[in-house]
Structure formats: structure tokens, C-alpha cells
């Protein structure tokens, strides 16, 4: 007889801890090397070399950066609100990391009679069916709305004009683009009929990816990706930290590890947004041969996420920054009405053509 804790086998707990550790280490490593990749990729796109000195082709650069920031002196401005100033980087960083808990990064592994779904907040019950958080998408939206507080608090508590302007810009931008991103997601729910990410991914099996289910979903995919870029303050929407006008925006007064935390939060947010786009629109972990060999699925997932991260960096190297009023106009006057039209169009399409894989039936 095997051990049981609170009615669940010990295996369940071991698998849970292992999943948390693996995902956490993967996100941390990706955050570290995304900074390196960004400098390298943008460097080569601008016919420069990027970091070259630390290690072979600068491979140890993120580690050197981390060590340097860790040992820097920590400065708290004398007129700052100390509590909010200290807690703001944590509020920015924690939601960025824990939103990964609901993203399915692989198919279900089977060890003998035990099934382990590759998603942190999911488990197989005794009958063998997979149970996950059935409001996964809303969970990520809720956490991303909490992450805004870190930036606004940082801007307010630093007691500096640059920081305050950066923080206010960030709050206005995130609130406006959250709307368009959320409405673009509704088209996905109309097809999937569920909020559970596990079921949304299962519904996209066999190249029935939502991105090309119908033209409206494809448009929703593009709009969701652009709005997410704006929500996480990436170029061309990085007005909260526009160097040319605001020094460094909301994190102007931050130094040492606290500055590094904002930096990590930004990159972790980028990974989360890319992972969410992959899960919702690009088939999640699905790929060729994943049914026969489930162990392949995390690699497909990682490849898709890295492709999207590369796209983010490509966009950063290509486009100049928006002007502030143009940014607001784009969000409220262009994306918001278009997503409303997309929802109505998607409803018509589902009723006339059907919610199924339209392209697949065309080629079959």
C-alpha cells in the first residue's frame, strides 16, 4: 500500500514540487538570457556586435550583470514613502512569475499508472481525468491587473517628477489596452466554450490552431498580441520609461536589486504574454508526433514561445516609439471598435460556417 497525504498519493506532491521547480528555473533562466538575446539580436540588426567581452561571444553577460546589480549600493530617496517604495518592486515581480502557474506547457506524461499533466495548477484524479483551474485565463488577467500596482506605486512613492509621470502613463496605458486585449480574448472563448486553458489547448489538436480557425480569430490574434505588447510596456509602446523624455520613467529612483526586480518583471511579463498567446492562439504544446511521444510537447511549446519573444525583439529593433496621444487614440478609437466588430463577426461565422477547423475541412 502506498503512502497517502490528505487523500492523495505521495506521487502527486513530488510531481507538483518538481513541476514548480522546473518551471521556475526555466522562467528565471529565460529572463536572464532574454536580456542577453535582446542586446545581441538588436545589435546584429543594427550591424553591431552586442556584448562580446564576458565569456565566449558575451555568453556570461547576464550573470555578470546580475552580480553587479546585486552588490550595488541601495539608495532610498529621502522624501520617498518608504513602505510603498520598498514593496513596489515585489508587487511588480510576483504576479509576473506566478501567472505561469496555469499555463499548460506540455501534454500529459504517464509513469506506470500515474498521470502527470505538464501544468502546475493541474492534477489527475483517481479516475485519471485531468483537473485544472477552470478559470485559467481570468486568473492571468487578474494577476496582470495587480502587476500595474507595482509600477504606479513605484512612480508615486519615489517622489520624483519623472517617476510620477512614468507611473501615471503606465496606469493609463495598461487600463486602456487591457480592455481591447480582453475583448479580443472573448472571440477565443466563443469558439472554445470554456475558460480552462487545458481544454482550450486540447481543442486545438491536429493543427486546428485558433489563429487560423477563421479570419476574425486571426485578426483577434494580431490585436491581442499588439495590445499585450502595450500592456507590458514594450517598444513601440514603452512610454512609461521613455529615456529621451523621462530619464528612466517609473524606476528612475531605483537602484541595486530593486531596479533588477523591475527589469526581471518586465521580461517575465514578456514571457508570460508570449506563452499565453501561444496557448490561446497557436495551439499550445501541439505539434507533429506529440500524441505518440508526449515528451516532445514541452519542446514545441518552448520553440513557439521563443519565436514570439524573438518577434518582440524584432519589433523593438524596427519601430520608433509612439507619441502619447497617438497611443491613446490607437487603443480607444481603433482597437476597441475593431474588437467589438470582431466579436459580432465571429458570432456570425460560428453560426454560418461552424466553430470547427474550417481550413482543415477545406484541405481534407
Amino acid at each position, binding site marked *: 500500500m502506498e503512502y497517502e497525504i490528505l487523500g492523495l498519493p505521495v506521487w502527486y506532491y513530488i510531481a507538483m514540487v518538481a513541476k514548480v521547480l522546473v518551471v521556475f528555473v526555466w522562467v528565471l533562466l529565460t529572463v536572464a538570457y532574454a536580456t542577453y538575446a535582446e542586446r545581441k539580436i538588436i545589435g546584429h540588426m543594427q550591424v553591431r556586435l552586442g556584448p562580446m567581452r564576458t565569456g565566449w561571444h558575451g555568453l556570461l553577460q547576464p550573470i555578470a550583470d546580475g552580480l553587479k546589480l546585486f552588490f550595488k549600493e541601495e539608495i532610498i530617496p529621502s522624501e520617498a*514613502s518608504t513602505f510603498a517604495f520598498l514593496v513596489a518592486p515585489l508587487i511588480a515581480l510576483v504576479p509576473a512569475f506566478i501567472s505561469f502557474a496555469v499555463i499548460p506547457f506540455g501534454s500529459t506524461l504517464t509513469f506506470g499508472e500515474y498521470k502527470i499533466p505538464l501544468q502546475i495548477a493541474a492534477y489527475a484524479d483517481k479516475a485519471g481525468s485531468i483537473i485544472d483551474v*477552470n478559470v485559467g485565463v481570468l486568473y492571468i488577467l487578474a494577476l496582470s491587473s495587480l502587476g500595474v500596482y507595482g509600477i504606479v506605486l513605484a512612480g508615486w512613492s519615489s517622489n520624483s517628477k519623472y517617476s510620477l509621470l512614468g507611473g501615471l502613463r503606465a496606469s493609463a496605458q495598461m487600463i486602456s489596452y487591457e480592455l481591447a486585449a480582453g475583448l479580443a480574448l472573448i472571440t477565443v472563448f466563443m469558439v472554445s466554450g470554456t475558460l480552462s486553458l487545458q481544454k482550450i489547448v486540447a481543442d486545438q489538436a491536429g493543427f486546428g490552431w485558433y489563429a487560423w480557425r477563421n479570419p476574425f480569430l486571426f485578426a483577434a490574434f494580431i490585436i491581442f498580441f499588439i495590445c499585450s505588447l502595450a500592456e507590458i510596456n514594450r517598444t513601440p509602446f514603452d512610454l512609461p520609461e521613455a529615456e529621451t523624455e523621462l530619464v528612466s520613467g517609473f524606476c528612475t529612483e531605483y537602484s541595486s536589486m530593486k531596479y533588477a526586480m523591475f527589469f526581471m518583471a518586465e521580461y517575465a511579463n514578456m514571457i508570460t504574454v508570449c506563452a499565453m498567446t501561444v496557448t490561446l492562439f497557436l495551439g499550445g504544446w501541439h505539434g507533429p508526433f506529440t500524441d505518440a511521444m508526449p515528451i516532445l510537447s514541452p519542446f514545441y511549446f518552448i520553440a513557439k514561445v521563443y519565436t514570439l519573444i524573438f518577434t518582440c525583439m524584432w519589433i523593438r529593433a524596427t519601430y520608433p516609439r509612439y507619441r502619447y496621444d497617438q497611443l491613446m487614440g490607437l487603443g480607444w478609437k481603433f482597437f476597441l471598435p475593431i474588437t467589438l466588430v470582431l466579436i459580432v463577426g465571429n458570432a456570425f461565422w460560428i453560426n454560418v460556417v461552424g466553430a470547427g477547423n474550417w481550413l482543415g475541412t477545406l484541405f481534407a
Partner: protein
Amino acid sequence: MPEILFFTLVAAVAILSSILVVAMRNPINCALSLIMTFFCLATLYVMLDAPFMAAVQVIVYAGAIMVLIVFVIMLLNMRTETSKNYVHGVLVSCIVAVLTLFVISGFLKKSPLTGEPGLMTTDLVDKVGHTELIGRAMFSDFLLPFEITSILLLVAIVGSVILAKRKL
């Protein structure tokens, strides 16, 4: 047993942070404690098998308090601290709170729970899903209140647009 422990922890944090909402001197810190309270309430919703309510609680209230904070930053002076002491106000509200506690416990004693499970059991929520149940109830049984609320919101939006833009 672990559920009770977890509940005690979350409830303690919720009570502590809701006391801080009224005790803090700085409006921003008050708003932050308010978020903490709502977050604890969301955790309690999750423990009651209502994950959809929890997510909506965080999304709606986090957004609303965000707007509150932006208002505080823009309209009040940067470091406004309520320095006055409100001894009488605090005393009266304490008395009212204690009396309310007595009234509520009196009502609870008077009407004992029947012990019969209602329509929405844990099994049903697990099988059908919480989101689906809420959606079905909202768009069938409670359609009229839902539509009336949406008209109310529309009126509020039009009103705010007219207030903000005097010259259209």
C-alpha cells in the same frame, strides 16, 4: 483540518488589513490595504468552490482601486495626511459596530440552519462548472435585472462623457 488552518490565516489577514484601511493616515496606504482585503476575500471565494467569483473580484476591484489611487495622486496634494483626530466619530462608529454584531448574532441564534443542502451543491459545481452556472442563471432567470443594470451603466457612461467634454 488544513482547510480550517488556511481559512483562519486568510481571515486574520483580511480583518487586519480592513482595520488598516480605516487606521492608516495616508490615502494611498489605505487603498493598498483595501486591495489586500479584497484579495483575501477572493481567496475565500476560491475555498468556497467559486473560482469565477474570485477572479472577477480581483479584476473588478483591482481596476476600481487603481482609478481611486490615480484620483488621489492627481487631485489631492502629494503627501496629504489626515492629521486631525476624530475621537467622537471613532467612538460612535465603534458603538454602532458592536451593536450590529449583537444584532447579527441574535438573528443567527433565532433562525437555526435547516441542514438541507440547496440546489447548488459542490458536486454540481464540479460537474457543470462555476462559470457556466453563473452564466446560465444570469442570462435566463435573472435576464431582466441584468439588462436593467446594463442600461444603468450605459447612462453612467453617457453622463461621464458629457461631464468630461463640455463642448461636444
